Each structure stands twice: as C-alpha cells, then as structure tokens.
C-alpha cells in the first residue's frame, strides 16, 4: 500500500499523475526503474507546431498599414488572430501535459515557464519559439536553457532589451536575470546590474522574430561585474552568473519547493539536503536530469511529510484530471475557462516573477470552483461562474462563451476496467487510494458512500464515487 502511494507521489510530482493502467504496470517495478522509464519517455522532443499560419508581428503590420496595404479593421483582425493563435498554442501545450508521453518533460517545462516567466501577446511566432525553448531544454543543461531563454525574442521584448542601447541603457533584463533567473535577491549589487545592462546592449531581435546582436548599439567598453573587469558581452555575463554558486542554490531551492514540498520546512536536515543537491547541480555543470534523478530516487522525497504536501496548480489539476480519466475536450473553451477562472493561464503568467503558487491558489471562490470542477467536466454541469475581464480589450475573448457545456469524451470504460477485479466493499478505498494522496477518513467515507444509490450498477458506482472523491478538498493536493 505504502509502495503504491509512493509511486503515485512520483507520478504526480514528475508529471501529472498516471492512469490506473499505467500505475498497474509498475506494480512489481522498483522506483529506480520507474524513474528511468519516466526519463526515457521524455527523451525525444517534438516542438509545438506552428498555429494559425504565419502571423506578421506588430511592427510588420504597422509597416503594411503605413504603406496602405492594410486598413484599420484588417489590422485589428490580424492582432486578434495573433492572440487567438497564442491561445491555440496554450491548448496544444496543455494537450501534451494532459495526454502526451513526455509528462516529465512537460512538467519541467511548466516549472521553467514559471521560473522564466514571460508574456508576449503580440507575436505568436516569438511565443512559440520561447515555449519550445523551455520544452526543449527542460531536462537538459541549465546553462544552455538560460542562454537560450535569454536570447529568445519573446523574453528580450518582455524585458525591454530591444530598448537597451549604448548611452541609453535599459536595466530591466539585467536586473531580472539576476534577481529572478539566477542569483536571487541580495546576491548582487546595483552596480553589477548597471554594468551587466551595458554588456547586454545590442541583444535584440529582427522583424522575423530572430535573435540579433546589433553591434552598432552595443557598448563595447570595459565593464566590472562581480569584481571582474573586461569588455563583456551578454554571453560573458551569463557565464559569470553560472560561475556563481548562488545560482545553483537559488535554482535548486526553487525546484525542490516545486517538486518536493510547497512549504519548505526551515529545519536543518532539509537545508543540508538542498545544499548537497545544489553542490551536485553545480559540480555537474548544471545537469538538470541528474539533479532530478537524485531527488526522485532519494528516501527523503518519499518521506510522509512530503506526500500530499503540494497544492496542485490549476494547470496541474486540470491535466491530472484529464490524465486519470483519458478526458479529451471537444473545444478549447473549457480549458481556457478553467485556467482563467482559477488564475493560471499558460503563456500569460501574471508578471516576470511567475505564479506565486502554494496557498496563493486557494481562496473562498477558487476552492468552491475546484470542488465543482469534476461535476462540470464529468457530468457537464451548468457553468455559473464568470472569470474577470482583465481590462485589455484584446483578451476579452477569453472571458466569453461562459455558458457552454464542457463537452468532452471521457474514457470511462478503461477506467472502470481497471477496477473490475476490486471487490464491492473495497471499491471506494481503492478509488481513493488511486485519486488521493492519503486514505479516506471514516467520516469522509460515510459521506461518499451515502451518495451511491442502492440500485446503482457497478459502472454507476464507480462514476459517482470518482466524481465525489475528486470533489474533496483533499483532491487539490498531491
């Protein structure tokens, strides 16, 4: 029993849970073997495809407008199409999380999306490139990832490096790269930021959405960063950041919080562990896969206090629900609606610091909605909650069409089959064991059992109980 709970824990943290079938396959496998399979399933990388055709960016559109090749209405249409395409990309990525083979890769890409948070609403090509960068390097080398994200046009635009020029530096990118991407607060000085900003002058992108180094606006003078002096360019600063041990510690701590425990306890042993992991990460020259493997195969990862200690983010909740029951939505609206109502829209993080996570996901209304969600999806219940407009005239589309049903295909037969051999009196506990991080309490159990009609068929029993278990506050945890 304990072993099965551990495997569930692994599948949830290293992905978005496992289907009952997948879980059964692992019945006689060691954790080490499952971990190896998780990595091999995520080995290959397939970029998210181009959506919505080739969308010209805002600048190109303005050019066309000035040349009289485009009128105002068409311009508005193009901008709208671009945003629509970004939503399509969101849904495609969500599909990978909810049913793709490389769950570990997508889970880590989600982590990096929060870490290297970036939003860009005007150019789907840039957003696609950025998303594929974090997906491609999700399990690779952190240094490569950092460099690739730093050079991605979406990020350069988001953090205003296009405006960072010799004699008119813009420090936004240089600041965030230190504060949020590598060192963390208090590990650099304002002087370091000023000087690093000079080194990043000239990093930008062209109209095709490709990285370019614009030598003519680069400041090629000497800069002093972290006490070292040279005619540094952007690449040199990235290298200097990776040389600092604080980077390994900062990223490892954040990762452990994401994968192991939301409330990283302040007690000594855990800190020693994080230091050891950070050492390993640093010594391995920032090998992400190696770090993950160490975490997933350590006893510490499976300590009771870490099991069920994580509040699922809205995307984790939805992807997990889909994965458990093989759910496929017929349209994209329900996916966007859930993300929006619960406050985590992929490719629209709130700001460069990403989603705060943990208990921040939960308030009175979000908890009630989460508890209602299984009903909406599994029984196509009535939608009565309307997410807020964010004030931007161009994203209002997201908030509309609230009153449509959650039309979806649900693979109940496969799910029911997995519990075929379970005896009637054990059914509820078996379902709970599969769906929750902890067993049911006596009172929860009586409450749920009372919901099943006397004359219910086996199939009805399973459906009723599954929907009810997924509606428990406990289902918000993994």
């Amino acid at each position: 029993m304990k072993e099965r709970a551990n495997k569930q824990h692994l599948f949830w943290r290293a992905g978005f849970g496992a289907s009952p079938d997948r879980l059964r396959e692992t019945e006689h496998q060691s954790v080490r073997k499952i971990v190896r399979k998780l990595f091999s399933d995520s080995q290959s990388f397939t970029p998210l495809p181009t959506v919505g055709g080739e969308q010209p960016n805002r600048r190109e559109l303005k050019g066309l407008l000035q040349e009289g090749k485009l009128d105002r209405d068409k311009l508005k249409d193009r901008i709208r199409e671009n945003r629509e395409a970004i939503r399509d990309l969101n849904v495609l990525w969500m599909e990978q999380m909810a049913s793709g083979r490389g769950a570990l890769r997508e889970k880590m890409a989600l982590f990096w999306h929060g870490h290297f948070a970036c939003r860009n609403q005007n150019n789907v090509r840039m957003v696609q490139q950025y998303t594929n960068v974090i997906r491609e390097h999700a399990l690779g080398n952190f240094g490569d990832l950092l460099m690739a994200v730093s050079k991605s046009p979406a990020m350069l635009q988001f953090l205003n490096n296009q405006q960072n020029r010799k004699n008119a530096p813009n420090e936004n990118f240089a600041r965030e790269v230190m504060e949020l991407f590598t060192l963390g607060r208090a590990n650099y000085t304002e002087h370091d930021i000023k000087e690093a900003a000079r080194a990043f002058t000239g990093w930008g992108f062209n109209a095709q959405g490709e990285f370019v180094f614009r030598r003519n606006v680069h400041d090629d003078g000497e800069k002093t960063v972290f006490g070292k002096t040279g005619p540094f360019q952007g690449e040199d600063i990235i290298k200097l950041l990776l040389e600092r041990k604080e980077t390994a510690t900062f990223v490892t701590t954040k990762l452990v919080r994401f994968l192991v425990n939301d409330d990283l306890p302040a007690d000594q042993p855990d800190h020693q562990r994080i230091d050891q992991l950070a050492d390993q990460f640093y010594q391995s020259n920032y090998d992400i896969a190696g770090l993950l493997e160490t975490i997933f195969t350590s006893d510490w990862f499976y300590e009771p206090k870490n099991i069920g200690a994580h509040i699922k983010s809205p995307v984790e909740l939805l992807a997990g629900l889909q994965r458990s029951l093989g759910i496929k939505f017929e349209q994209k609206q329900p996916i966007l609606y859930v993300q929006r109502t619960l406050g985590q829209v992929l490719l629209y993080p709130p700001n460069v610091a990403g989603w705060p996570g943990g208990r921040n996901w939960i308030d009175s209304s979000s908890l009630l909605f989460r508890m209602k969600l299984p009903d909406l999806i599994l029984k196509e219940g009535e939608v009565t909650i309307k997410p807020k407009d964010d004030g931007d005239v161009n994203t209002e589309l997201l908030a509309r069409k609230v009153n449509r049903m959650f039309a979806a295909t649900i693979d109940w037969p496969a799910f029911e089959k997995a519990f075929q051999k379970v005896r009637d009196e054990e059914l509820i506990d078996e379902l709970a064991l599969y769906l929750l991080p902890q067993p049911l309490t006596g009172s929860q159990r009586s409450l749920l059992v009372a919901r099943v009609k006397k004359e219910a068929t086996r199939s009805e029993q399973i459906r009723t109980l599954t929907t009810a278990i997924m509606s428990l506050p406990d289902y918000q945890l993994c």
Partner: protein
Amino acid sequence: MNRRKFFKNSAFATVGTMLIPHFLKAYEANPFGASQSAGKTLVIVQLSGGNDGLNTVVPFRNDIYYRERPTIGIAPEKVLKLNDEIGFNPALEALKGLYDDGLVTVVNNVGYPNPDRSHFRSMDIWQTASDSNKYLTTGWLGRYLDANCHGNDCLAHRAIEVDDTLSLALKGQELTGLALLDPKKLYNQTRNGLVQELSKMKPDAETTAAHPNVSYLYKTLAETASSANYIYDKSKVTHTQTVYPTTELGNRLKTVSELITSGVNTNVYYISISGFDTHINQPGQQERLLRQYAEAVAAFTKDLKSTGKLNDVLLMTFSEFGRRVKQNASNGTDHGTANNLFLIGGGLTPGRVFNEAPNLTNLDEGDLKYSVDFRSIYATLLREWLKVDDVAVLGRPFETLKIVSQS
C-alpha cells in the same frame, strides 16, 4: 491498511454544536468582532482597462489638450466645469450633482515612479501597492486583513469583492477576502452537494501537524461556508427602496448598499468594471461607461443618504493608468501613465479639486507625470478613514493627504 486517524468530528457520529469547528464557534458568539475599523466602510471601484483621465476630467482651457486631441477633445462649452481649468465629461452629469453637494474630491496626477504601461503589470502594482520593480504576492487589502486580524476577528468577509472571483488586492498572507456576486448565490454554492457536509469537517491536531495544507483547505472551506451563511442570513431581510440603474455596476453597488444596511461586519468592498481600454472610437464607448458609472454612484450615494450612512462610507475610484495625451489615428488613445482619481462620500473635507491640473507641457515620452503617489492615498484611507496602521499594510510610511474630514 495504515489508516490515518483524521477527522475528529464525523458528520454522522456527532450531533448538534459538535459539528461546528471551534474557530467558527468563537465568532458566532461575537459576530461583530472586536473592532469595526471605527465603523467606517471603504468601497473601491476599479475601472479596468485604463480610463482616459483627460477626457474624464477635461482641461478645457488648455490649448495643448485641443491640439493633441483634434477629433476626440471635448469642447469647452460641453464641459461641466469644476473650476477655471478643469471640468467633468458631460457624461458625468450625475457625478457633477454630487460634486456640487460637496461629496466628491478629485485628485489629479496620481501615479507612481517608473510607470508600467502594461495593463496586467500596472494593475498588479495598484493592487499590491508595490514599487514598479518589485513583485508582491499579496494585495494591500489582503494585508489590511492580515494586520487587523486578532483572535476571533479573522474573518474573510471583512473584505468582500462583489464578483465571482477574487482579485489579488484582497489576498493576504494569512487571510483572504470573500468573493460573492450576491449573497444568495454564494450561500447556494456552499449548500450544494458535498460542500455543506465537508465544510463541517475539521482535521484533527495530528493531521494539522503532519499535513498543514489539508487543514488549510478545510479551514478555508469552513470559513467560506460560515461567512456565506452569516452574510446571507443578515442580508436576506434588507432590500433597498432606492432605484438603481440595471447596469453591472448598478447591481453591484446595490448589493454593497444592502450589505452595509444589513449591518454585516465588513469594512471593505471591492468592485471592478471593465471596458475602458479605448484604443478605437473612444468617445461613444467611454461616454457610455462614464454615464453608467456616474448614475450608479449617484444612486448609491442617494441610497446611503436615505439610510443615514453617507458619512460612514467612502468610495474610491481608480484605474490602472491614464492614457496618452495625444490621441491615436483611430479616434482612440493608447496606454499612458498618471491619472485622476475620485473619492466620494460625506466624510470628506470639503469635497473639491484637491490639487493642480495636469501639466501638459512637461511630459514624459508623451505621458503625464505623476505628483501624488497612489500609496499616499492608500495610506490616508488606512490611517485616517479605517483608523488602522498604514505602515503595517504598505511596508513603509507614505505622506498622507488632507482629504478626510477630521470632525
């Protein structure tokens, strides 16, 4: 199976008051809590999208204004004059009536250093009261709840957002506000299906220690159900006699008024309305929204007067930024910076134009420069209206403004 000993209170094994968790029982006995923030109520109306301040409060004597806005500028003869320099958009006729009664204070040039022109970021900054280069995960009203939560007084419904979902502004570290579109809807949600029974369960001490998030979820659920119950119970008998316009804002302000009249222990109400992102064909759109705003607020004020609450309620209206001085080529305006802000109520000293009109000759890349940090207004509202420690909420002192009547 190694079954955990979990919930002490089973909905089936126990009866009567045993079902009510302790932390709820505590305030059933004292539903009004210890302090009532001096009996004052703050209502915030957020205009999402960036309301164009220059066409809301029009500098009708300023040539630059008319030069930069050749097709959307509002002609001087149409402006509802507040003084020799500025006046309201004619769509704010209902608000002008309140102004003439001394109930409206207009604060010009409100903003913050290093302004951000993104809706999301700027709204974040206003809602968290952070510097523009810092990222906070709690809102200023959430921190107000945190800082004023003592013992039995930690109630989510001390701050209510009239909506289905909760804004960052009302999320604190320990406490978050309550979102409800109307008391009955929330009440029904908490009575539905499993929710009602689950809201009565309380994890035992062992679980709380081993799995703090489990107890956090159940605590949130219990508080939600209890608040929903309390509010529905208090408010179901109160129905205002005042006629409100049947707009979104009208409906929401009506709900606020009924809650205030019912005597619920709520100090802060939050409402947001959107549609102010007027890049294209601004005049018709903005005038429609401003008229809706003014008429809803006028009805609300009239209602408060009739219930004798006008001096105890202060309404603040803001938007995440103003708009560019120069209009664009689509009869609209693009994102800008500093903006005006309204304070409305009977407790102001005296209702007026608080400070200088915007300076259109001294711009920052085509945008207005701020002279009043919005956090000075928050500090004033916290310290002088709600009578609480503003520094505990805002993290550092901000100059307060003389806008609240000291009588």
